[in-house]
């Protein structure tokens, strides 16, 4: 199973979003323009999600961007507006208590038939961390407890926990219909020893950057799947793009997070012209 995700824009897709000064620039007179005040940036995000679903990709990633749109709100909308699309929401552990993060997630799993994934951003730029009220000291220990508690309340009725950062007494989703749902698949990243240790304990998928040394990290991640952030391959044709992906598949990667632009056009191009080349080789999109 090889999965392909489109990384969503957080600040609009070029002029398709009010982050751009030319967003919905009115048609000049005498032409009628009925869009004003009717459509907003989330209509464009919905279109990108729809494109990914229709073009046969696995899903989309809503990245954490402190200067962009909030990812869980984006994720909830896209889950609702699609039937098959997986949606990965990226956030840092400081946004909520682990109980509340799990509570939001279990509702989204119930609403979507289990299509939500999590991406946890543990390493943040120090300025961003301060502006988010997210303490960077002991961040890997905190992230580990965050995931332990979130999984604990999800799976164990009467869950009790007393740790360095979090405390729960007799908690847990112990009643139907909140039991028996799939915990969001956890995506983590980073190549520091702390990052790899956290992934070994908690990740379903460890996501690498193209420059990372996969071969030395992979032995430290038994039982974990490997993902790759794949920036737009400028100037490459479909054959070359497929060759790059095929090479990573051979090295063990089974989840690709594509960064494409413009989003809708490139999503269709990938689905229609690159995916078939990979499928022919035996790697399946789903």
């Amino acid at each position, binding site marked *: 199973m090889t999965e392909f995700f489109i990384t969503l824009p957080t600040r609009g897709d070029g002029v398709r979003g009010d982050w751009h000064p030319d967003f919905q620039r009115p048609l000049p007179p005498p032409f009628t323009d009925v869009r004003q005040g009717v459509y*907003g940036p*989330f209509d464009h995000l919905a279109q990108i999600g729809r494109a990914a679903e229709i073009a046969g990709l696995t899903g989309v990633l809503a990245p954490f961007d402190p200067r962009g749109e909030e990812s869980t709100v984006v994720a909830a909308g896209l889950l609702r507006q699609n039937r098959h699309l997986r949606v990965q929401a990226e956030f840092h552990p400081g946004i*909520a208590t682990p109980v509340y993060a799990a509570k939001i997630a279990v509702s*989204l799993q*119930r609403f979507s*038939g289990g299509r939500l994934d999590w991406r946890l951003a543990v390493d943040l730029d120090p300025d961003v961390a301060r*502006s*988010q009220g997210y303490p960077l000291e002991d961040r890997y220990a905190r992230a580990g407890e965050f995931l332990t508690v979130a999984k604990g309340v999800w799976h164990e009725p009467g869950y009790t926990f007393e740790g360095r950062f979090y405390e729960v007494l007799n*908690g847990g989703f112990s009643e*139907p219909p909140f039991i028996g749902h799939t915990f969001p698949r956890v995506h983590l990243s980073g190549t520091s020893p702390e990052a790899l240790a956290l992934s070994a304990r908690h990740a379903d998928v460890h996501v690498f950057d193209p420059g990372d040394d996969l071969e030395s990290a992979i032995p430290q991640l038994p039982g974990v799947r490997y993902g790759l952030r794949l920036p737009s391959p400028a100037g490459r044709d479909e054959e070359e793009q497929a060759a790059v992906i095929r090479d990573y598949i051979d090295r063990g990667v089974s989840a690709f997070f594509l960064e494409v632009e413009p989003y809708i056009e490139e999503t269709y191009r990938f689905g229609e012209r690159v995916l078939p080349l990979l499928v022919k080789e035996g790697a399946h999109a789903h």
Partner: protein
Amino acid sequence: MPIDIYWRIPTHGDQPLLRHRTPTRGDFAPTVAGSVTPGGVTPGLRGGAPDGYSYLDHMADIARASELSGFVGGLLPSFPFTDDPWAAAASLARETTTYRFMIAFQPGFLHPVQAARMSASLQRATGGRVVYNIISGGGGPGQLWWGDKVDHDDRYARTSEFLDVLKGVWSGGPFDYEGRFYRVEGARLPEPLARQPFPEIYFSGSSKAAIEAAGRHADYYLSWLEPFGPLAEKFDQVRTHSTALDRSPRFAVRIDVLARETEEEAWDEIRRGWDGIDPSVLRDATGDSIGWQRSQSFVTGKITGYRDLEVEPNVWGGFHLLRGGPAFGLVGSYEQVARRLDELIELGVGAFILAGVPHLEEAYRVGERVLPLLRGHDIRYESPVLEGTRS
């Protein structure tokens, strides 16, 4: 001032009748061997098996029904075993047109910077239809279920800090804050998020700490329905605290409604519900919520029948026995219920959150039959309750 009338979107399933406590709507219905029992809907229309619909689809129907029948929006409540209001509102954002989502939440659970970001993005997704119902917890075992160990009065102090940070971030920034509970440096919303309108705040809580915090932060001070005299006194306390802070929140009331063509039909529905309840549950109070203790104190004397809980005309204190939630609601004919709502407007109420079971059909009934009978605040009429309480 315009008066906003909201409905409630139940976030923990719904029952088909007030007298039938077992939920049939949504997967909150009991299951047999993993399948929804016969009569359960959404999911389960097709032979009781999951059918691709979820409880969210029923919540969407209730939102659309109440939007179509005249309500400005819906309250999404939050308790341990409800679906989450943020998740529901963000999912339903693009499925209604004018409907406002009143999101109930406890400030301690989300970081205020995150709450600001989620709210602003949700404002962008809905075109500015987010409203807050800020609650500071019923306390008791529930708070530790949530992993929250802050005690009652401190929770209001935290709520105040939370709102200071939330508003500070929203107002442009970069915003620095160093408090007991929160510390941020250089926090700000990106410009397209910051230019969204800040959501109206409905603030709940009956304790002294809550009323003081409401004085500082509330656009609307929201109370459960209580007998009208005590309710007016509570509003007066909030007014006093607010005036000292140079603020003047409006008042809102959350009311369960059982309205029928005739008074007899309405009470007959209550009687049939009453006949099915276990009398031993009459005084089952838990938690450190002052609101709950207050509502229990209004019913005095021996309870021998359902009408003993009618503490003043049409104000019945037994709704919690028939469904989860507050005790007091209005029971009567369409005309009677409308008159009592008008009286509350006379007491200073500027917004209502109404609810009835089942929420889908009752949204249509109350929207079509009761709301058109309202006169609003301009009309004076005889009221036994108001006499003597107002000059």
